[in-house]
């Protein structure tokens, strides 16, 4: 009786730890009050365990103060999917533009010198002053607050900081600022501000010398993520293990091809223990295949990009994934656009897709959004051919989204053309051949 009670307690403790780990992995910066309060309490309760785990297995530091919890997710190098993690606006979810990134950084710079409270108008003045810096002005970016769009950019950057708990709104609303009808007052939270940067080195300490913009950027990035030298063999081994663990914790699919040889060899030898540790911490389930490892999530919550998902974009992504799962090589984007265009009318007429999906040019947007999603999940890679056309290269894990059996395949028929249950073959469908192949493949 006592034994089972102890077991139950241990079980619930393990569950709680798992939830805490997932919470901090999902939001690496948790504020103690506000919407994150519950997650923060969990992380705080298990901070000793989590700190030890993340340090040992991933080399990430976890800082828990009474005000916030911050998991410093450092990145080793420019991984294959690093560019698929943009800062996003809340609603609608859109990647940040250059202007907004710059504004966010200037805001942070202004805030690190600010008092405990500040208004958006005051921040805007500081930012405009900082933007007038000759180096920044030389890049051709101009900042004014004359237009609504410019103020909107500033508001988007501010909202990002609010999202991370650096600022909290005391009075007012950014919308009023955008409309030029009012100002907003914020509290500045210095701890969160201090916790924003995660790089191993302070950017201001890095001086890159390259003349060409692309190599200048690459040099800066390399220095930003430069790991200290390995020292001993043992340290080197440990670093490799941590690097692999980080990728498993943070990225959807770890392809062996993307790993440098030493890391691949290490993973081959130690995959059971590495994968097992990640699975135990997070409750993710390893999906180990010949090409790589995906830690898949039965709960479907430990991600910012979902697949499959409902809605127009989710459905389009699923359609394209199904199509690409059966493709044997690179597929031109134009083919995918044709595919979407040929379906859009039917789906929109049935009310499955948003009405604007049939607008001219909407197919391009839908395909781009869907490919962003597939690329973010490590399912495809985009390649630019010599003539400038973009081709989509399916990656192995996309086969997860192949159709299960031929009978289900009619689901791919455009609804609304005759009887949805028993559709007639449509001679105009470009993917007819592909569909047949999908069936073969599924067997």
């Amino acid at each position: 009786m006592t034994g089972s009670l102890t077991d139950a307690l241990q079980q619930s403790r393990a569950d709680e730890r798992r939830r805490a780990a997932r919470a901090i992995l999902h939001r690496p910066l948790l504020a103690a009050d506000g919407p994150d309060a519950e997650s923060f309490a969990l992380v705080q309760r298990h901070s000793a365990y989590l700190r030890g785990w993340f340090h040992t297995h991933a080399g990430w530091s976890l800082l828990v103060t009474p005000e916030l919890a911050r998991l410093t997710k450092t990145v080793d190098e420019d991984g294959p999917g690093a560019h698929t993690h943009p800062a996003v606006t809340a609603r609608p979810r859109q990647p940040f533009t250059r202007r907004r990134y710059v504004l966010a950084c200037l805001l942070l710079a202004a805030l690190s010198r600010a008092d405990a409270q500040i208004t958006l108008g005051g921040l805007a003045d500081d930012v405009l002053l900082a933007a007038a810096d000759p180096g920044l002005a030389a890049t051709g970016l101009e900042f004014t607050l004359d237009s609504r769009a410019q103020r909107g950019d500033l508001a988007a950057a501010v909202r990002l900081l609010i999202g991370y708990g650096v600022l909290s709104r005391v009075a007012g609303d950014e919308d009023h600022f955008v409309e030029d009808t009012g100002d907003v007052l914020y509290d500045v939270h210095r701890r969160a501000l201090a916790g924003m940067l995660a790089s191993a080195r302070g950017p201001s300490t890095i001086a890159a010398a390259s003349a060409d913009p692309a190599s200048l950027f690459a040099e800066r990035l390399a220095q930003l993520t430069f790991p200290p030298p390995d020292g001993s063999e043992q340290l080197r081994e440990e670093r490799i293990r941590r690097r692999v663990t980080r990728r498993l914790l943070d990225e959807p699919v770890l392809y062996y091809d993307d790993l440098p040889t030493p890391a691949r060899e290490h993973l081959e030898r130690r995959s059971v223990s590495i994968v097992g540790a990640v699975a135990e911490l997070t409750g993710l389930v390893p999906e180990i295949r010949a090409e790589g490892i995906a830690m898949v999530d039965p709960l479907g919550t430990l991600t910012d990009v979902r697949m499959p998902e409902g809605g127009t974009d989710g459905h389009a992504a699923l359609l394209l994934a199904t199509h690409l799962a059966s493709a044997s090589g690179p597929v031109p984007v134009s083919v995918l656009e044709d595919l979407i265009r040929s379906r859009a009318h039917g789906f929109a007429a049935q009310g499955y897709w948003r009405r604007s999906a049939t607008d001219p040019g909407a197919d391009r947007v839908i395909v781009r959004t869907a490919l962003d999603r597939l690329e973010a999940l490590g399912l495809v890679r985009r390649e630019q051919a010599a003539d400038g056309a973009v081709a989509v290269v399916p990656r192995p894990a996309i086969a997860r989204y192949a159709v299960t059996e031929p009978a289900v395949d009619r689901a791919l028929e455009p609804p609304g053309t005759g009887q949805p249950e028993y559709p007639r073959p449509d001679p105009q469908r470009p993917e007819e051949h592909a569909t047949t192949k999908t069936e073969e493949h599924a067997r």
Partner: protein
Amino acid sequence: MDQADAPAGTPRPFAHLQQPGAPLYRAIMGTFVQAKRRFIVHLRPEDIRAMLPEHARTSHDGPSLDGALASLEHWGNLRSDPDTGRVTSVEEFRRARYLYQMTDHGQAAEDALQTYEEALGRRGSLQSVALDDIAGRLRELHALASADSPAPGATHLALRTLVDRFEDLAANAQAFMSALARTIDVRDAEADAFVAYKERLIEYLERFIKDLVGTGAEIARLVEQIEELGVDRLLRMAAERDTRDTAPGPADSRDATDAALARSLDLWRDRWQGFRAWFIGSAHHPSQAMVLRGQARSAIPRLLQVVSTLHDRRSGRSDRAADFRALAQWFAEAPDEPAMHTLWRSAFGLQPSRHLGVDAETLEARSHSPVSPTTPWAEAPPLLISPRLRRTGSYERRGRPAQVLDRSLARRHLSERAAQEVREVARARARLATGGPVRLSDVGTLEPAEFRLFLGLLGDALAAKPLGARTVEVSTGDGAMSIRLSEIDGNGHAEPGAAGGPVAEIRTPDGLLRGPDHIVEIRDLSAPPVRGA
């Protein structure tokens, strides 16, 4: 040296403060002040040079030492006398030699400047020792007040000391609190000094607060006890001693002495009142000691706040504002959009973890037939995705009911059924309401709805029929219909002895109702009496 506009001979001892070489002038005057502390009056230029602080001696801009001395003499700060002492080298002998000393103007100016600097640079202090002294004098006074004839000299001395110490305490406390306010408004440059200083400062404040609470209470008690014993007697004694020392005025008379005594007594009474108010407060006016205690106490959290702000500012390895500005520059110069997103992730690392999903069915299928780790993805069973999601893009979430149930369909169905029933009943009534007597055997075939109604009527009638009666007439519960039922005999007449009477059969789609024949007359009471009753 540009003093041409000044009338010759008018000393202008503060002029050097506004001159370009002011630090040197101040340093020179400093040497004279220092020399005077050592009771040295005259200084030779070489003595001055030796006494000057390092920075003034090595400074190359501004006037030379000799020039500076000449200027100071010109402004009236210094006076020179020919130096007649013996020399040891030819060069020295050839040079005009002077001895310098401060003039009265110069001396006064130096005193004034010293006072000025002291007042500005005053840190003030919270004197626990003063509190002790005050308490000690009060104890003395208490003893004197208790005596029958207190010694005037001792009383006067005790009161005087009390006043001195008290003025000192009050002035210092005020200075300290304002200095503290300045300290808390700390600048970046002073941060290091502040952090080093804050612990001692807080300790100091805490000790003072403790003393103020402890000794302050004792002082307040003593003040009240002395007042009970009669403080005025002591004050008068002090005043008398004060006036006795007053130098006789031009119109020396008794009146003048009395007036002086009264003035002195008022002064002493005021002092005592002020003293009292400092340590004993009323409900509306908290005592000064209380206010000071409050200020000192509230200074501690403010100090800690400053410390924490300073720690925050320096918690980054590099200057954080500079880091963010550098990043802004990098973002602005990033070659393309993916580069910006990569930079965002590398610098901030705020992205959520991202993982592919898997559903319970797929997991279960895998647990039944595990996939070998060497299987390529293309050959492993794919994810089980609901056909509906594939077909429509709408996601069915398992195990979760729809948030809002759409009942319009059910409602329509119900209303359709109700309408149908109404129609059927109406039809049945029309069919059954024969308007006159008919035989059951003539009714023939009935639809289910009609039959249900008919059976209901028949049941009502049979149940209502008294034993032995041959005819019965009832109306339905809702009063819509009535039925009249009469038995009939074998001949077709309504007569008794129906045992072997004819049998009526009513057909319905569901079967056959068979029973002794009757004559029925059904009337629809709700319908307008078309054919009469």
